[in-house]
């Protein structure tokens, strides 16, 4: 096929990430034959070169046409290769398939359907039992989702969709995770949607279930910090500078966003002109004894990453913040970042319910949600991972403030109607007593 046709095909896909850049080259940097019998199934790594001299690598699975993932027969082949633990040679490397015994299953896969909602990957669901996620844009290194799912699966952490298998490439150019197979949660209700419904309905059982979500989160962190002998997961003491670096980073973000608050957004009134006050608050909050330990953690934790399966919570999507680079997403950080993410998620439920569900939650809904969640969390988390006593409360608020400031910028740029949510969060932190 011509280079031009390849460029057009790749850049025309919804999973192609760099739509604003000018692709000028496309080359197959490596290929591996996955099935010899007709129709031949082939894995191709395509390098797309841009006019700026930079490049990206994409994964294609082809069977004569350009994309075989829509073909049930072909995608099943990928699962079969995982079950067989196959290693296929590519021209400049190898493609290795692996499965987790006891999860992958052995039965025949009958039905398969491609999930359409996704942007950067292609996912295929088999018989409502397994879901295969094929990464399109490849990044060098171990994918954090594979790493975390594998660790949690191997350590028997129950509140996830377990890892069933994966496949990856290692070669001269790069090593990269190509795809992940995991259990499919059938009857799960999206945590975010459920929270909105519950908030306007005054559903007490839901508030109670948030204590359980706190417990699950605490346990997840305890498990992730439980292997001192595994260098990839061993908890580490936060570095001497970490608190200073955090403080400086958040402080400059506050300074810069308050310097350019737009005049014509009335929702900003409660915080307008209060930038120095917020910075002062940050200074008080960062006066603390220590930052605890850093571990691998979820990385992008909010209600939208949870499912309620009917009797318990399932935590999803361990990929980390998509905007960050892969090594960045694999960095160990304080587990309290996850906690702060979830607390901000409650603030979003409280403030967004009137838009999205047309009625107001009870005034104390957010407060109660926070309390329940935090109590559950404190009950189960390994205390050695978090700072002691009020230092934990202060550090948690620093992360919440960081998130709220980030949200403020995001909403100003993208959803001006939602600006009042981070504004309310910032006001809340200004009015609250500093924990002593």
């Amino acid at each position: 096929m011509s280079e031009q046709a390849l460029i057009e095909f790749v850049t025309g896909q919804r999973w192609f990430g760099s739509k604003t850049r000018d692709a000028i080259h496309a080359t197959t940097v490596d290929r591996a034959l996955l099935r010899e019998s007709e129709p031949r199934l082939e894995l191709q790594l395509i390098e797309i070169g841009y006019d700026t001299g930079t490049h990206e690598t994409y994964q294609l699975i082809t069977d004569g046409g350009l994309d075989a993932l829509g073909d049930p027969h072909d995608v099943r082949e990928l699962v079969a290769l995982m079950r067989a633990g196959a290693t296929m040679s590519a021209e400049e490397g190898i493609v290795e398939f692996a499965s987790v015994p006891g999860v992958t299953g052995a039965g025949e896969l009958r039905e398969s359907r491609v999930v359409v909602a996704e942007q950067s990957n292609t996912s295929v669901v088999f018989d409502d039992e397994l879901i295969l996620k094929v990464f399109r844009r490849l990044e060098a290194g171990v994918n954090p989702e594979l790493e975390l799912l594998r660790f949690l699966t191997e350590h028997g952490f129950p509140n996830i969709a377990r890892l069933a298998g994966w496949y990856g490439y290692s070669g001269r150019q790069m090593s990269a995770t190509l795809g992940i197979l995991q259990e499919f949660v059938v009857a799960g209700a999206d945590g975010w949607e459920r929270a909105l419904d519950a908030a306007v309905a005054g559903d007490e059982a839901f508030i109670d279930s948030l204590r359980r979500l706190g417990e699950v989160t605490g346990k997840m962190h305890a498990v992730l910090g439980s292997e001192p002998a595994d260098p990839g997961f061993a908890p580490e003491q936060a570095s001497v500078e970490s608190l200073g670096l955090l403080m400086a980073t958040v402080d400059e973000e506050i300074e810069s966003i308050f310097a350019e608050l737009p005049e014509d957004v009335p929702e900003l009134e409660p915080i307008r002109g209060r930038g120095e006050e917020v910075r002062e608050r940050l200074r008080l909050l960062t006066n603390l004894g220590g930052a605890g330990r850093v571990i691998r953690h979820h990385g992008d934790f909010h209600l939208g990453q949870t499912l309620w399966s009917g009797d318990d919570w399932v935590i999803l999507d361990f990929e980390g913040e998509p905007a960050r680079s892969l090594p960045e997403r694999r960095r160990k950080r304080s587990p309290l970042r996850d906690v702060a993410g979830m607390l901000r998620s409650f603030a979003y439920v409280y403030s967004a319910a009137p838009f999205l569900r047309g009625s107001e939650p009870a005034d104390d809904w957010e407060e109660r949600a926070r309390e329940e969640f935090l109590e559950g969390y404190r009950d189960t988390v390994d205390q050695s991972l978090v700072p002691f006593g009020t230092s934990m409360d202060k550090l948690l608020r620093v992360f919440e403030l960081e998130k709220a400031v980030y949200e403020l910028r995001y909403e100003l740029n993208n959803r001006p109607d939602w600006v009042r949510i981070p504004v309310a969060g910032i006001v809340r932190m200004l009015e609250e007593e500093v924990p002593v």
Partner: protein
Amino acid sequence: MTWFEREPYWFKTAVFYEIHLRAFYDGNDDGSGDFRGLTEKLDYIQWLGVDCIWLLPFYPSPLRDGGYDIADFFSINADYGTIDDFKHFVDQAHQRGIRVIADLVMNHTSSDHPWFQQSRTDPNGPYGEWYVWGDDDTRWSEARIIFLDTEPSNWTWDAARGQYYWHRFFSHQPDLNYDNPEVQEQMLNVLRFWLDLGLDGFRLDAVPYLYERDGTNGENLPETHAFLKRVRAEVDARYKDRVLLAEANQWPDDVVAYFGDGDGDECHMAFHFPVMPRMFMALRREDALPIVEILEHTPAIPANAQWGLFLRNHDELTLEMVTDDERDYMYEEYAKDPRMKLNLGIRRRLAPLLDNGRDEIELLHGILFSLPGSPVLYYGDEIGMGDNIFLGDRDGVRVPMQWTGDRNGGFSRADFQQLYLPPLMDPVYGFQAVNVEAQLRQPNSLLRWLHRLIALRKDHPVFGVGTYEALRPENPRIFAHVRTYEDDIVLCVHNLARSAQAVELDLSRWEGMIPEEMFGRTRFPRIGELPYLLTLAPRGFFWFQLRKEEGE
């Protein structure tokens, strides 16, 4: 493993940070900095906004010249760790998007190097012709002596071999013989060895002196350039996105030759030495002319090449590339105590040179960051560290990094007596007054200011890749120039005077545009037909982005 997207011109917009490994952070409590320690501090370096770390030599060495006397090119000084520590460090740096280049001395080795020892004792053996030997110590007398304070001649007698050996630097650093193809090949092996381990390039120390020829001063010879072309071709053929940075302390006309011919086929970067002392001179004289003139006399460079710009580094502030009068002036102004002088230079750090004046430090960084080139910062200068002129040679500017106000400045948990050099403890520059931890927490600290400056520069590729054009206002105390890259037009105006100044700038070409001050995003009045009037605080500077009027 490739961590980076391919980006062949990364170095053109990069901020470099020069680190003396021994001085940075002690990771194993033995009193001396090492790779493990440096790895622990990568988060700080990433936060600062550094794109590329430049490491001083870390090879085994008797350390008679701070490690520039290399005794083994294929290994790591045991004080600094192991090859595995090095690989881990490079990997961790790459994970944070930071590249790493290292010093490499191609011109000479330590006299302790086994090659030299064999060359002296076995003239007919395999290393007999690896160094430059002669029976006559008057040959090549046109070549100047660089280390004037310590070396009477470029030749030293070796009793074992019964001949003189040639050395452009210290007598314990014999020059390698590049007329010998085996030496050339071996040096290429050295480059390949480190590039294969993941290093992103080299700062090539003392490149002008590789060859010697009768009737010449032995600098910048055609043979030297030919060898550098060979090095570049080797790097381009086998490695991506690497950089060669030449240290050629020469006049700009000679330095540009190190970028090679045509599209640039030697070094990617070279330091611009002459502009450095002139920034200090301009500040003392309150006159922009020295900077404007030297840039006027700087030839154009290939599109794929870049200047390395710096205020201070690990050496003395070199005054080789100034006139005798200018040198006298610099000594007079910046080295009042004779102890501050070394060879043709001044062995002081940035903050003490500027009497710790915050405005002056900011102004010089402003000028440095606005000039065409990539800035190279020296560790410790970002917090305004001082020096210790009572330590020998250049050790005074190589003291431990000051991390905290705790014991040993947070540099090491070893006993004080064990430290390789004492940290600064004086009331002005000592670690209790000047340290990273405190400055991170103070929003108005030098560190925090510099962090913003770096971020601002990185937001605007124009500083790395744009054209440069000096404005010549009537007020000589103002250094004003315009950088342009596509639609990004930046006007930089610096007041070199100790007093407030007004200046009228001819901006008629940009009539109708609005200057927006880049730090505070304040909009200034529209540029009209008449000269544009600005007033600047003492030692103050403004950078403006020239924007089209809204609605146009």
